């Protein structure tokens, strides 16, 4: 998972500056602890669990992309699952059918999804809010059908395995892909974990840089008031289209990670439910904060992979109900998600400190 | 009302108003833009949360929703007329009688169509396609359909030509003479309003700065200074 807490997150409510100190000691400590935990994790858990963690990373990357589009730029997409799936299938096909090596395939998946995103972004210029949500919902529902339509390429309903040709004594045969660590010092699941952890961190760092840059501010300006942004010199159409592209590229990279982690994909992994879960991760974690989607992805992952299997069989389907209820409650009481709640409480604490300081100063004066 | 304080969210607009309207009285509240006139009416009809006392006919209006305030006998014609534009004239009138359970509704509709001939000519026309003056008359007629004892009227002259406004006020005068309904009128157009009303208050920045019989205020220097820039 990303340790972006050390690197700071988006526009934060500045805590009342304590005299003289500039280094946020608390943050540094937290980041070091988080980093240590992240490094230790794959050695503490069995392989299947570690692979689940990688799945959470894929979700986090995709949610990060969605957050860029919906949280920071205000364009609602309920269809990022389709881009996730596009990235997954692109990667799988490039590696399996065209024999590309892994990393270029991932990069290419990102580029392909960027192009698709721009293509969707163009009509999205004229379709906004609820109506854009509708269109993206339709795209997401359509995606698995498209996969099945072109089953000769995609393997249709029976799915697609990612395979690479391997030398064996019996000649070259196709074997399911395995990412082996150099020297074989780490188990495959652990190697996957670290490789994709680095990728995830890179994605989140890129996200943070985008958000903090002038481009990032123009994204937010467009979200809050398009006319005002246009008048202040922001090229609104270009911003919106590019954001769609970059957001889709991220989702595609997430899909690539998903595909490489699982080794096998089929259309049922990319139904509308996936799009919804991305949205949930973004909103629960906190839209318009860099680290929010990561927190949301972890929270969702914990919920689905850790909590839910522990429930008795009868209650398993209850988990999404709870999710649904939680979502509604969240929207009503804490629309800022987990990060939002954190910021509000931090601001309240800071306000309290400030009030106490003023009160102290005032009583000091009267003495 | 006593000590009325109200506002929008965290912005307070009214700071402690004391205001009375007696049965059958015509009272006008004058004030410039932003002085809080509309807010006052909205507070009475329950569209806003307010602090302070509002008592109507011995009954407190605290915390009542707009639809409950109507049942208490108050009708509110909002700023901008508030006609229901996708409904016809007759439908607007019919819905105006929503709180009534008696059988004279249809008769009343005819009554009002006679009282405002221009409405009578356009019974089945969509409210949204009528002129401002016609809409204003419709809005007033609709308010009267609930047979209120107090009518709240918010800036009827807004957006209307002077001749039309004068016509509206004349009709209103006739109606209130006939029905004995009290009126709390809010207006920017001081002259017309002071001709119409019996008593007046002047509101400035959320506080009452003058009050008294309308005729007196018409010649009062404070009022003239505040409004006519004299």
């Amino acid at each position: 998972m990303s340790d972006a807490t050390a690197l700071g997150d988006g526009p934060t409510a500045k805590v009342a500056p304590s005299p003289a100190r500039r280094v946020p000691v608390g943050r540094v400590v937290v980041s070091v602890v988080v980093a240590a935990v992240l490094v230790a994790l794959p050695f503490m858990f069995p392989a299947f669990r570690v692979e689940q963690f990688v799945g959470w990373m894929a979700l986090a990357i995709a949610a990060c992309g969605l957050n860029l589009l919906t949280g920071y730029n205000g364009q609602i997409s309920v269809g990022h699952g389709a881009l996730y799936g596009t990235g997954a299938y692109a990667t799988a096909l490039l590696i399996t059918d065209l024999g590309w090596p892994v990393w270029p395939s991932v990069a290419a998946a990102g580029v392909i999804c960027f192009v698709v995103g721009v293509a969707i972004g163009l009509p999205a210029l004229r379709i906004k809010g609820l109506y854009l949500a509708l269109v993206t919902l339709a795209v997401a529902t359509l995606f698995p059908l498209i996969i099945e339509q072109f089953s000769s390429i995609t393997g249709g309903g029976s799915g697609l395995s990612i395979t690479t040709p391997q030398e064996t004594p019996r000649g070259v045969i196709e074997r399911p892909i395995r990412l082996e660590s150099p020297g074989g010092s780490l188990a495959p699941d652990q190697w996957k974990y670290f490789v994709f952890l680095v990728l995830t961190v890179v994605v989140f760092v890129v996200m943070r840089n985008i958000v903090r840059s002038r481009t990032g501010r123009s994204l937010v300006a467009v979200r809050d008031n398009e006319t005002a942004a246009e008048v202040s010199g922001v090229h609104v159409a270009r911003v919106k289209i590019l954001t769609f592209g970059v957001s889709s590229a991220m989702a595609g990279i997430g899909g690539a990670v998903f595909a490489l982690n699982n080794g096998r994909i089929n259309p049922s992994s990319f139904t509308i439910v996936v799009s919804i879960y991305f949205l949930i991760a973004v909103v629960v974690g906190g839209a318009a904060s860099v680290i929010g989607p990561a927190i949301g992805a972890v929270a969702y992952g914990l919920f689905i992979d850790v909590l839910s299997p522990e429930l008795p069989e009868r209650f398993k389907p209850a988990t999404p109900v709870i999710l649904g209820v939680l979502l509604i409650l969240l929207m009503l009481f804490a629309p800022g998600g987990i990060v939002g709640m954190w910021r509000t409480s931090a601001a309240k604490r800071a306000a309290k400190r400030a009030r106490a300081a003023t009160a102290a100063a005032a009583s000091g004066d009267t003495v | 009302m006593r000590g009325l304080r109200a506002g929008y969210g965290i912005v307070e607009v009214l700071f402690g108003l004391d205001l009375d309207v007696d049965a059958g009285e015509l009272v006008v509240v004058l004030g410039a833009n932003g002085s809080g006139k509309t807010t006052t009416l909205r507070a009475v009809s329950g569209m806003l949360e307010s602090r302070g006392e509002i008592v109507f006919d011995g009954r407190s209006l605290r915390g009542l929703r707009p639809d409950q305030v109507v049942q208490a006998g108050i009708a509110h014609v909002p700023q901008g007329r508030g006609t229901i534009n996708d409904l016809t004239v007759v439908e607007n009138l019919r819905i105006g009688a929503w709180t009534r359970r008696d059988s004279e509704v249809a008769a009343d509709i005819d009554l009002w169509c006679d009282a405002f001939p221009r409405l009578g000519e356009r019974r089945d026309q969509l409210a949204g396609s009528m002129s401002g003056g016609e809409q204003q008359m419709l809005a007033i007629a609709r308010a009267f359909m609930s047979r209120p004892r107090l009518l709240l009227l918010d800036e009827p002259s807004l957006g209307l030509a002077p001749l039309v406004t004068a016509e509206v006020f004349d009709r209103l005068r006739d109606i209130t003479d006939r029905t004995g309904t009290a009126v709390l009128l809010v207006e920017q157009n001081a002259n017309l309003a002071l001709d119409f009303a019996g008593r007046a208050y002047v509101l400035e920045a959320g506080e009452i700065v003058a009050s008294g019989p309308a005729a007196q205020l018409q010649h009062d220097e404070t009022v003239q200074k505040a409004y006519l820039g004299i």
Partner: protein
Amino acid sequence: MTDFLQVLFVGIGDGAIYAMLGLGLVVIYRSTGLLNFAQGEMAMFSTFIVWTVWDLGVPLPLAVIAGMVGGFGVGALAHQIAVRPVGDPHEKPLAVVMVTIGLFVGLNSAAQLVWGTLDRDLPPLFGSGGIEVAGVAIAWQKIGAVIVLAVLALGFYLLFQRTGLGLAMRAVASNSESASLVGVPVPKLLMLGWGLAAAVGTVAGVFTAPGRGLGSNMMQLTLIFGFAAITLGGFDSLLGAVVGGFVVGIASSVVPQYVPGFEKMPLAPAFILILAVLLFRPEGLFGRKQVQRV
């Protein structure tokens, strides 16, 4: 030619179902101003209620009525607890989307919780037989769907145009502030609108179940078709929902059959319709209000 007619009539029958869902969507759009992404799941849930009642031995038509009542309750409840507190869809579209998505997810899994994950069987309301006209086989079920749709549409027409309650609902839809100023209890009527919409959705679900199997994901495709219907017809037009439903139904039946490359994607024409309408004529065929306000 008979093949084409065959496909056409199937499309008409399907179109009636989409129109049913569309009617509910329009009622909700007109009263609360939002697109209810959970409409399909509400329909699915109440169809399960129909099944439960029927499974107890109640004749199917009565079970449907019972399900509609149950659906009404689900819709009204959904409005009260989830939709009303969130506020104006035009100001906070993301929150509204999330709430309807939350309802979607919640109802979907509540159904799994109560009735399990295996599909159930619901028999067709009009039986499995059919008639043959000029060499074209038309199922009673399809004819029944059209008839039921006509009844529902007529019912809505009478409600809205001829009753005081319907007048009040129209007033609320047009200007809810003024409606409350004449004494109309706006929140109660909004709740009523949602209840009606859910009840109508139940019927759509009852017609979808026999063909597709009564499962928790049953209505997800139908939802998109329903939205396509009202997008084409105009988001606030009941007539548009009916006309749009039939157009979408026919297109989705004919195109996969006759246009190469679309065999497995009945949703594609619907999707293209949605996109085209929103881009070029957002108010659809019969819509009136400004759609681009968001």
